[in-house]
């Protein structure tokens, strides 16, 4: 059964699991501390990043989560994750970006308050891309900062 979800409910229930999972994944797998800036509603689908990994949610939680990076940040983070230099734009590069998003979304999932499944990641490589999202679900942007650079976790999910 659908319920109307207010902005306050989104902020309280759905943001913190992703804040926690992002910090945990980056610290554990990359050794990077993450500073989280103030989350905001994404008002326009502006192309801001060079790489995005998309994870779909289904079940009692539905929607999409997108983790997006600029090129320089993605290169540093992928190399830190792999423990080696990875050729940018290669299949291993997109694999690494997808796996980071998979862990961020997967680790958050258990704290979202419902039974849900996540998709395998889809990775988009290319400057100026726009990710279309479900039109009935507000998109919350969590701006993240690390020594490797800035990236964003964008959440468009709701309880089904």
């Amino acid at each position, binding site marked *: 059964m659908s319920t109307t979800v207010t902005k306050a409910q989104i902020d309280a229930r759905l943001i913190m699991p992703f804040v926690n999972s992002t910090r*945990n994944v980056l610290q554990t797998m990359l050794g990077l501390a993450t500073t989280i800036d103030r989350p905001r509603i994404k008002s326009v689908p502006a192309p801001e990043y060079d790489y995005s990994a998309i994870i779909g949610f289904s079940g009692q939680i539905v929607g999409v989560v997108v983790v997006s990076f600029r090129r320089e940040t993605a290169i540093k983070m992928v190399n830190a994750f792999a423990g080696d230099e990875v050729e940018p734009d290669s299949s291993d590069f997109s*694999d690494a970006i997808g796996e980071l998003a998979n862990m961020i979304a997967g*680790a958050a999932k258990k704290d979202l308050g419902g039974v849900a499944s996540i998709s395998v990641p889809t990775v988009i490589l290319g400057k100026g891309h726009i990710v279309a999202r479900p039109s009935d679900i507000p998109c919350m942007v969590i701006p993240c900062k690390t020594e490797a650079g800035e990236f964003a976790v964008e959440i468009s999910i709701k309880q089904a």
Partner: protein
Amino acid sequence: MNILLVDDSKVMRNIQKKALAALGDVTFAEAGDGVEALAVIAQNPGGFSLMLVDWNMPNMNGLQLISTIRETDKKTLLIMVTTEAEKERVLEALRAGANNYMIKPFTPDALVEKVRGTLAKLRAA
């Protein structure tokens, strides 16, 4: 020790390989999903000491793979390595035949400890 790593992420498989090299005399085989894993298993009649299995993979997921393996093989150690952290998921994997469960993200030391602990439990049984 012959270990099969099953994960659709090659980067993740490489991370696991690097970590598990700490175990000493280890060789690795790899597969990107459950279908590929079954083919690798069929091509290795000597079997594997241990398999690390991801849950969410294309073609055949880790839960389906473990269930299929356990139809004919009750002995090989199977550890699910996944982001699926809910208690119900853990129980589901253990009921399907996993011997242990490792939640991502993990440090290399934590993975090695999980494998050592699983091997020790087997020896004690």
